[in-house]
């Protein structure tokens, strides 16, 4: 099976029912995508597929044939992605474990809505849980990233 992750094609040899999460983590050493619950309830394993958020812990790798997968490692070489920059400016992470899922979910939201309301943010982000309680900062960071994206006239 061949899958494309962060612009790179990988040949992989695993059972086709293996969730993408474990292919990323244990076979490709892309450990930025996290295991949290294994049943799609916590969002730590979120990746982007064609710009949409997907729970990689419950989605078999075979579903990704011919799709474009972006993981946290694929955002920028230097933390320069506008969402990463907003996260840095607002000092969002505490333990940091859930933040890959938070950042990718935020990007998926901004792909659709360049000026998200509070309720858009609630809806898009409420499936990604943070035990450290960084939600107030995530909300601010999404708004800041949205503002800077609007300024440069781009989508994330």
């Amino acid at each position: 099976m061949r899958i494309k992750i962060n612009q790179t094609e990988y040949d992989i040899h695993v059972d086709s029912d293996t969730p993408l999460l474990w292919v990323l983590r244990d076979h490709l050493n892309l450990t930025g995508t996290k295991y949290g619950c294994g049943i799609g309830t916590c969002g730590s394993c979120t990746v982007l597929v064609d710009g949409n958020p997907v729970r990689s812990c419950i989605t078999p790798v075979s579903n990704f044939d011919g799709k474009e997968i972006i993981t946290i490692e694929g955002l920028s070489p230097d933390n320069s992605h506008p969402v990463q920059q907003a996260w840095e400016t607002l000092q969002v992470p505490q333990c940091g474990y859930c933040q890959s899922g938070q950042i990718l979910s935020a990007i998926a939201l901004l792909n659709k809505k360049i000026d998200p309301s509070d309720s858009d943010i609630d809806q898009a982000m409420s499936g990604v849980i943070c035990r450290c309680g960084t939600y107030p900062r995530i909300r601010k960071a999404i708004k800041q990233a949205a503002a800077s994206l609007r300024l440069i006239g781009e989508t994330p």
Partner: protein
Amino acid sequence: MKPFSPDRRKFLKLSAGVTGASLVLGINWSCSNDANIDHTSGTDVFIPNAWLRIDTKGSVTVLVAESEMGQGPFTLLPMMVAEELEVDWHQVRVERAPLTPVYGYQMTGGSSSIRKGWETLRQAGAITKEILRQAAALSWHVPVSECRAEQGQIRHIPSDKTLTYAQLVPQAVGVQIPETALLKEPEEFHIIGTPAPRLDTPEKINGKARFGIDIKLPGMVYATITHCPVFGGKPKNIDAEKTRQIKGVLDVFSIDEGVVVLAKDTWTAFKGKAALQIDWDFGDKQSLSSDSIIKTLEALHIDETTEIVKQGTPDNLLDEKSIKSRYTLPFQAHVTLEPMNCTASYQDGKLRIWAPTQSPSEAYDAARAATQSKITRATNKIKSKLFDSVDDSIEINTTLLGGGFGRRLEQDFVSEAAQIAQRIEKPVQLTWTREEDIQHDFYQPLTLHEMRGTLDARGLPVAWHHTIKGTNAKPEGANILPYDIPHIRVDLIDIGKILPVGYWRSVQHAYNAFAVEHFFDELAHAGNHDPLELRLQLMSKAARLKKTLEVAADKAGWRHNSDLFGVASHAGFGSYVSEIVQLKEQGNRLKIAKITCVLDCGIVINPDIAKAQMEGSIVFGLTAALKSSIKIKDGQVQQSNYHNYPILSMAETPPIEVFIIDSNENPEGIGEPGVPPLAPAIANALFAATGKPVTDLPVPFDSQGIKVT
């Protein structure tokens, strides 16, 4: 570059032997075999003490012997060093200190990192600054008094010549080390007290941060474990046939704690675990339930042996006419987002551990006990408090922690990984499923609080009686009241650790603050007093707590006798916190409109991190107050994953405002003190709104808000 390569670990040990916690000069020219050393070629490194390294490229690396789990020690402790050393924040790097005796017993808990580091790390910076001043004076042949440290360089004041710390590295080696150095006064601080950006943020937004679960070793295999669902049970018969048929499953075997599946990757191990058929001997805890524990606690009564606080003559004033209440608080789990895991390798008699642990010292003890014969294990557990040295056959590497909250003070996962590694003699990563993580936690104890109070003719409380009952219940947070109540009695009835209980963010302060602060409002209401006014009136001996309350009332716009506000204050971990919850009505629900928090933690090392800790503590408290609880039935935890042990979500998080009191008192804890006032502030707001006290947590809540009955 000199060719020799001294063993840095040995150096640190010797340092400890000679001077204890003070400072010894050493130098490390090149340590190609030491993973803790920067491998940048040609960089000489000046190591003035165990906490600090300065290289010839201008980097200052601070070694932190505390576990980073989000609460900020990887930034806060380097700030203390940088303040005294006079370096720019962008020059500072951080590294996790290894487990060596020079750092003392390594345990991160009880909101202690700042308090432990405050003197030592500032001294480490200040003494090093003195060495660098003397090194500059020697190279210029001028008096030290003419040399000033500023922004990573020494300036000769009369001539305006400068040498950077990087340039001074070679000269610094020969300088005699002063034993102590003068520390700055708070008004001289220019790093402490600023919102310096966290040193761990960059790697936490690009996937590069390495948590325990991210460790990869050459030739590593993957393991998962199944514990008996009933506490203390053991496997009677293991049918692993289906598991072994799964391609990629390498082995199935038992260790003390449960049944291990070994596989080529984590997913295959999980699949193998799901296919196991285990016949358990459930042991003697299978009739245990939350309900049976509550019944047991209800049946126990106070006597002279349960009394732990007595002030005045409370027994004469407490009678049938006293106001009474009872609160039941459930078991709670930690559910760190990173499930329990540990990586271990056992090769050639050497055990190496990579663990997301709050206590490397306890991890060491657990690993040592686990890899010795079973006969000596029990003895070792008793000896574990005697940690005073580290032998080289066990190495503990502490990774970043994907959340801790007290769960990772327990080292069960380290013991398991060590046993597996020793058995298979290959590197192995043990990862628990989320279900195992929730069902085999060390829970916040279940507690019952029986309250009695008597008012005088003015409606002021004159007598107070609090009976704390629980599984490993403790009195802190209830045994010293901030209020002027003349007659006080506190009793403690503890039935011990009948199931695994442990440390949960703010520990006993969480449940005791709930009982004290909620019952205070019941008394205020009965005496026709505004609960905030009454608190202020009775806080004559609690000036710092009172100040947080005054500021909170002002910032939140407290309205007297309003039915939409609730307040609670609590002192713990050296700090003082008041929180005010403001409700709003929405249909047949109450929603939290805003939470205002005021913190006095003494000198604030980093106000942005202190605020983040308050925000996080409030969200943590909200989860327990509104959403989650652990229920035991038939000796088993009934919850299994985030669908039935839900965590507060973004949409459910109200606006939170945090204010910090200016102070020149010594800096105190920030990780935990924000949790205790939250639940009682919610309960007090609900009590104001409904007239009914909150007797059980969590309160009924759904996506629309708090249900009012």
